[in-house]
């Protein structure tokens, strides 16, 4: 604001040499751009752009990265008009519940048109990071042709492409440093895409193809790894055997992040010791993942590398408590741990004992649909971890039942949670000791964890849970709700009470039009709202759309469903207006 005051003064003293041709800024634009250009945080840049016109311009000219949390909230034209110099784009497409098959195929979020615009406006584009977008081989080929400086592509939870697209990237992106394919729905056609990297290509730093099913051309891989001396991240798929892994590690001891292939070949003693020494030569390893299909006897080859590990992703390796305990003894520096619930409570006790620096824990179910005496982790394992790992701030915990008391104890031990995602896998499951709802558990979470940003709730829950959330969760940004609540009042509490709420996703709850409409004022400050299988009707949605023209109110309509019900509603703010590419089953109201 001082700047603006000065500006007024300047106008009155024309001799001042602070004036420049653009207007009345106190600094030359170039300087302002330089200074503002050093800001990295999106939020800071956003704030800066609101100060005054000069700062807005300085910010937009100096911006190199842009993050778009909802690809339909803005159009490529608007984006490129405002930010002319972008080098890196991050785009997220479908609503998160599409991961769980709640969004039909061909819903949208196709990258292609974005790429067409970028080819014209951002010919120097270097990085593209996409999540939940549809990406076709055509698009990947187009990308590879259109951006000569292209360096990094990261595709998470995307669909629509095959290894042919990867081949195009490999062949044509001469400066590629990163090829990161995570958890996509990909058509694994041939094993030769790796051979498409030219012999002269040496710039790769990140290679992640862990999700591919089929064999890759190992010879080509080995040669690639050998000549890319800057390779830091290598994540292999399950076709890579232990023997092959050893050879790769031998070529790339400088790796920082490793995703192994299958960990269960039958090794001879000699092969075993070669593998062990390969691991002990990797002095820089801080992240370990993969271990598709583990033979626990071979885990000790990892021990030499464990001391420096900070992130251990064993979420596809169903180990038992003994195996994990023996390993964790060596992993004192672990900050992030992802495991399968086959380690059971005893395994979690080992976590609590051996990993005092732990900050993030994710426990995935081995067999989510198992019945009867299915094991897994329980409240006592949860407590055990919280007792030993006081720095815990991120938890994702799948269990079959829980108690209010246990959760209260956990958050008392670890009051700094920022992300608390508890999934009690039986919908509507009460506290198994007291048979009461789980309201008090989440009440304890929001009361104790003042820094809470993300919350996912489950179990038997009444409106009381939502009252607690609305009253206490003042920093909450993301809330995921399923099979919970008693009435509209619950959702209302949240909409009225959580000032920082950005993403609200709800399924199978008794929230209807009153609840939906209570957030009229709120939705423009949020990224999006998802409601599926609730009690919202088409009329309610129409009313919302009418009252709030700057929101896109979309209903996903199933064939043959009741016309008055709005089974799946997706509401989001947008400056781009209604979607132009909506399929027939998406109705924009």
């Amino acid at each position, binding site marked *: 604001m001082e700047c603006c005051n000065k500006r007024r003064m300047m106008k009155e003293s024309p001799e001042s040499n602070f004036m420049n041709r653009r207007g009345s800024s106190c600094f030359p634009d170039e300087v302002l751009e330089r200074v503002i250009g050093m800001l990295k945080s999106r939020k800071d840049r956003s704030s800066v752009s609101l100060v005054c016109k000069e700062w807005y311009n300085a910010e937009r000219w100096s911006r190199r990265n842009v993050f778009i949390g909802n690809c339909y909230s803005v159009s490529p034209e608007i984006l490129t008009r405002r930010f002319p110099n972008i080098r890196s784009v991050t785009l997220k497409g479908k609503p998160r*519940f599409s*991961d*769980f*098959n*709640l*969004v*039909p*195929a061909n819903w949208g979020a196709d990258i292609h048109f974005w790429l067409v615009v970028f080819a014209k406006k951002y010919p120097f584009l270097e990085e593209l990071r996409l999540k939940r977008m549809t990406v076709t081989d055509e698009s990947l080929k187009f990308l590879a042709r259109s951006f000569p400086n292209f360096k990094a592509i990261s595709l998470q*939870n995307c669909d629509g492409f095959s290894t042919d697209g990867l081949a195009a990237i490999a062949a044509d992106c001469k400066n590629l440093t990163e090829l990161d394919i995570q*958890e996509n*729905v990909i058509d694994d056609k041939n094993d030769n895409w790796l051979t498409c990297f030219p012999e002269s290509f040496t710039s790769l730093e990140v290679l992640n193809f862990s999700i591919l*099913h089929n064999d890759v051309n190992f010879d080509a891989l080995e040669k690639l790894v050998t000549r890319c001396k800057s390779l830091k991240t290598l994540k292999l798929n399950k076709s890579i055997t232990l*023997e092959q892994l050893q050879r790769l590690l031998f070529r790339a001891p400088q790796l920082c992040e490793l995703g192994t292939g299958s960990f*269960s070949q*039958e090794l*001879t003693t*000699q*092969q*075993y010791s070669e593998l062990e020494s390969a691991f002990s030569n990797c002095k820089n390893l801080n992240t370990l993942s993969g271990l598709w*299909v583990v*033979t626990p*006897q071979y885990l000790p080859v990892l021990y030499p590398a464990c001391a420096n590990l900070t992130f251990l992703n064993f*979420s*596809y390796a*169903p180990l038992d408590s003994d195996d994990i305990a023996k390993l964790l003894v060596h992993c004192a520096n672990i900050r992030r741990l992802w495991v*399968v619930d086959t380690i059971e409570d005893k395994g979690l006790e080992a976590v609590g004992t051996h990993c005092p620096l732990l900050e993030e824990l994710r426990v995935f*179910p*081995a067999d*989510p*649909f*198992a*019945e*009867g005496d299915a094991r897994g982790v329980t409240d006592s394992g949860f407590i055990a971890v919280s007792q030993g790992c006081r720095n815990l701030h991120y938890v994702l915990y*799948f269990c079959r039942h829980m108690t209010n008391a246990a959760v209260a104890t956990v958050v008392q031990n670890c009051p700094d949670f920022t992300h608390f995602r508890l*999934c009690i*896998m*039986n*919908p*509507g499951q*009460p506290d198994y000791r007291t048979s009461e*709802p789980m309201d008090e558990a989440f009440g304890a979470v929001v009361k104790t964890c003042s820094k809470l940003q993300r919350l996912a709730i489950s179990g*038997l829950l*009444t409106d009381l849970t939502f009252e607690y959330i609305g009253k206490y969760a003042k920093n909450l940004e993301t809330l*995921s709700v*399923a*099979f919970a*609540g*008693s009435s509209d009042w619950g959702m209302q509490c949240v909409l009225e009470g959580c000032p920082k709420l950005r993403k609200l996703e709800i399924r*199978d*709850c*008794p929230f209807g039009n009153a609840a939906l409409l209570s957030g009229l004022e709120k939705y423009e400050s949020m990224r999006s709202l998802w409601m599926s*299988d*609730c*009690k919202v009707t088409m009329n309610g949605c129409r009313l919302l759309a009418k009252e709030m023209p700057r929101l896109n109110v979309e209903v996903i309509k*199933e*064939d*043959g*469903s009741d016309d008055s019900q709005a*089974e799946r509603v997706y509401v989001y703010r947008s400056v781009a207006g209604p979607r132009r590419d909506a399929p027939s*089953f998406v109705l924009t109201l």
Partner: protein
Amino acid sequence: MSTPLEHDYIGLAEKKKIPSSSSSSSSEDGKTFKETELRLGLPGSESPERKPLSGVSLSLFGNLNNNNNVMNHHVHVAGAKRGFSDAIDAKWAFSDAHGSDSDLGKPSALFSPRGSGNVVGKPPLDPKTISTQQGNSINTPASASQSIKESKPLQEKNPQLPATNEHASAPASKAQVVGWPPIRSFRKNTMASNLTKNNDEAEGKPGFGCLYVKVSMDGAPYLRKVDLKTYSNYKELSSALEKMFSCFTIGQCNSPGLPGKDGLSESSLRDLLHGSEYVLTYEDKDGDWMLVGDVPWEMFTDSCRRLRIMKGSEAIGLAPRAVEKSKSQN
């Protein structure tokens, strides 16, 4: 549309096959369960409707990728258990829990009861199926989905699942819901296949003191495993294999004068092996098929990945040497 198909298949499945007694193929599971339940449990009023779901889903996923097939096997294993315990806990299994399910008519796979837990895990892979199921499309699923929707919000009163059991037998009659628990398909598929694989691995866990390799014999219906560390030379290995596989050569003996099953001895097998009928080969760590006996024993155990008793006719290039070698070894 997949829905009409689905219903046709339900109809067809019920009439179609006569279940064999104990099949191991997952596609017949549905019928096997049905049979089992009918025999052991109550006269299956609602239950037979349930089973075709397995058939339905399996058929729907017949076209999907291999991961699903692996899950099919998993279903088979788990489902077998459920089939039995369902029969045993007949009361709630057939009356209340599935009372509501049967009210739903031929429920969409959304509401498959206990038995088909994993099966429903799969429908989410086909969004179209979901959309038709959830979407109350043709026939009875319309009412199914509706009543489920109505009952779901009541869950806070009735914590047990939409099947709205009066009995507190919640753990049993769990209706599976699309996209719940919230686990991504990739993880679901991978874990399912890992579990089956790890079960297989667990059986033949190699320690450091043993070196199990698979042994296959051409024409034999199944393979064997031997621990190479328990032998110290080729002769011991050879005898062990002869003992192991003698049963498979019964009936393949063409030499006259052999008494037949009763009189078949190890020597007959040896004769077969040495008579250039069969040749012992192994796959080394480079993936090449080599003749057993060329290299020192230690080197052999170091590099042998698996063994194969090959028909002499296939080992044409090796056969003459095989005969000489075998003869010289014995």
